[in-house]
């Protein structure tokens, strides 16, 4: 078990990590999710012992390891760049941590073959890393981290440099590999969909703070605040300010550029938000809860102007302007819609989220 107790990191007057408390259990996969510079790598370095915290303490299985250097901890790291020994075969690359540990030839051979099998590298053991594809090179680096049987394995955007088909395959495989190992895995990524595919637990990071930590799907469905909801949605969650007046939310739709008269739009308050107090709120709706077709009878609709449609293979992101706000609609299949059209989009209010003026989630939302 890895514990962070009020751990912070300040570098030349700049706070990289605000005081953070985290408990990571043995045999779990933990995702650090956040955009570039949100503190993922700083946290990983603190966990590894590459950096010493400015304040607070780090415990491993109850023992205080604050300040203990990385060499004296049982840690393995995998980086975004594929790092292997170029002059050694795949076999020797995987075997290297075992050789350093002074294991016997029999043990090395058995362990290397076991991990190679798990990582589907068995037919490639005699090859040199640079003769392999990016995915195979990264699997070699992963195999070396796993064979070490480190109690803590840290992965910093390990799939970022692979093409999307390989990423897809690795994301499906990794949870199986993690489950078979029993170590604590910490996996940093900028991509919400990657966190969801990996499962496990997720800590959302924003400007050096953990905004929420819990089971991945539950953080996604029940974000504590708007920052967490934003960190955990790609394409970004659509938001708009509104005022709750009894049974309605009243939205003022401004024209693009903020000029001209604002149009007043009313939306009926859905049952799950009935207990929200009257007054100003920020409404949030995920892109897949907006659609070009009515999701159910009498779903409320909004008038928007289309911009560009992005097509991602199995789904399409239709970018639109709702007043002066950029919104995104996620549609299944290929939807190539011309720009500058005035269209209606339907809102599935059963999944509408509401946030208070402090950014905290109001009432029971069902993202």
């Amino acid at each position, binding site marked *: 078990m890895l514990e962070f107790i009020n751990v912070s990191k300040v570098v030349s007057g700049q706070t990289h990590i605000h005081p953070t408390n985290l408990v990571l259990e043995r045999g779990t996969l933990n995702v650090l999710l956040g*955009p*570039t510079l949100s503190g993922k790598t700083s946290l990983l370095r603190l966990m590894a012992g590459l950096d010493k915290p400015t304040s607070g303490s780090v415990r491993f299985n109850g023992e205080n390891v604050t300040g203990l250097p990385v060499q004296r901890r049982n840690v393995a790291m995998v980086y975004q760049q594929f790092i292997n020994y170029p002059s050694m075969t795949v076999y020797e690359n995987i075997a290297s941590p075992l050789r350093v540990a002074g294991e016997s030839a029999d043990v090395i051979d058995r362990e290397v073959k076991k991990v190679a099998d798990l990582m589907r590298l068995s037919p490639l053991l005699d090859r040199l890393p640079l003769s392999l*594809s*990016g995915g195979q090179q990264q699997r070699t680096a992963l195999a070396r981290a796993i064979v070490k049987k480190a109690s803590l394995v840290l992965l910093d955007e390990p799939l970022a440099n692979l*093409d*999307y*088909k390989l990423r*897809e395959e690795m994301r*499906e495989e990794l949870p199986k590999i993690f489950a078979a190992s029993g170590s604590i895995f910490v996996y940093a990524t*900028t*991509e*919400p*969909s990657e966190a*969801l*595919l990996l*499962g496990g637990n997720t800590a959302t990071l924003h400007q050096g703070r953990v905004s929420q930590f819990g089971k991945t*799907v539950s953080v*996604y*469905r029940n974000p504590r605040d708007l920052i967490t909801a934003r960190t955990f949605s790609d*394409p970004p969650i659509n938001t708009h300010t509104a005022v709750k007046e009894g049974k309605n939310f009243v939205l003022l739709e401004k024209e693009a550029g903020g000029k001209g008269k604002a149009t007043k739009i009313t939306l009926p308050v859905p049952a799950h938000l009935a207990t929200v107090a009257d007054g100003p709120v920020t409404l949030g709706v*995920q*892109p*897949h809860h907006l659609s070009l077709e009515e999701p159910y009878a009498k779903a409320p609709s909004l008038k928007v102007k289309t*911009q*560009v*449609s*992005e*097509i*991602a*293979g*199995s789904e399409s*992101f239709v*970018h639109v302007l709702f007043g002066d706000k950029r919104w995104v609609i*996620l549609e*299944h*299949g*290929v939807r*190539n819609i011309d*720009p500058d059209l005035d269209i209606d989009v339907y809102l599935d209010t059963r999944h509408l989220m509401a946030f208070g003026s402090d950014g905290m989630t109001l009432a029971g939302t069902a*993202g």
Partner: protein
Amino acid sequence: MARINLDHIRHAYGIRPTSPNDYALREVHHEWADGGAYALLGPSGCGKTTLLNIISGIVRPSEGHILFDGKDVTHLPTEERNIAQVFQFPVVYDTMTVYDNLAFPLRNRNVPEDLVATRVKHILEMLELTDRADKKARGLTADQKQKISLGRGLVRSDVNAILFDEPLTVIDPHLKWVLRSQLKQLHRHSKFTMVYVTHDQTEALTFADKVVVMYDGQIVQIGTPAELFEKPKHTFVGYFIGSPGMNVFPVEIAGKKARIGNVSVDIGFAPKISKGQKTELGIRPEFMDITRKGMPMTIRKVEDIGRQKIVRGELAGQAVSIVMKEGSDIPADPHVSFRDEGINIYADSWRVGQED
């Protein structure tokens, strides 16, 4: 702007190729329309960069000819082909202002200054860089620099074509969609013939009117995004486009029926299959339903990815992925049914349609 003809082009990097496998690019014979937006999409090693280099003149094809508007340019060097190129990494002069960087390709060709001013102003507006025109390029972020590279590609109005070689690789993921959208709008406004090389499906499908999917040195399909999704011509297209990719099952074809394991599926037409051909049925995860009736399946894992669920399991002894809506229930005794419109039949990996 020009129409591009690829006339029986083949290319081998080694000398004296003897078998099709010796060619990095197997025969390509196509006409690309003037003003079209084409994307060359495929994994590394598929031949897409070779083809781009043949169009730009960096590589001279071993066989065949390349024509711009009917004129044979096969033996012309890059400089004489009148094309603009945008590369993976920004090519920007740090000590010059944004304006001068954009003006460079024009001044290089002795375009009069008043015309330079009109063109550069236009490009600055398109790229939303007007307020930075007088700033030195040095202090700009990687994506702003790449925008300038794009602008330099677009600034000349007399080019035959603009070639893009993975231009968004260095761009932060959160900004990619902004540039993707801008590129698409740029094409709509400019009507240049554009050829865009990428291994990323979203970039290719968003940018192009026609996507050219390449695999193992050959073009396996040229089609609109909808055609590639709905009717993949080759099993590779089904796999490569879409996430997760198409499920492909070995089948036995008998008349209007396909047999998977010991279950028979009605396919609505009798595909023409030659003797000895390998026959397969392809169906995308989006066109399958998990129900109480149909073919029995086993479920290995359900991935809840928020907006939908991906069910991974086995059907007739083969791995299968099925996409289900958010919040949908999965029966205890799961069976699978196929929606007719999603069924494609393949013989030796190539699609056999009703029309064939």
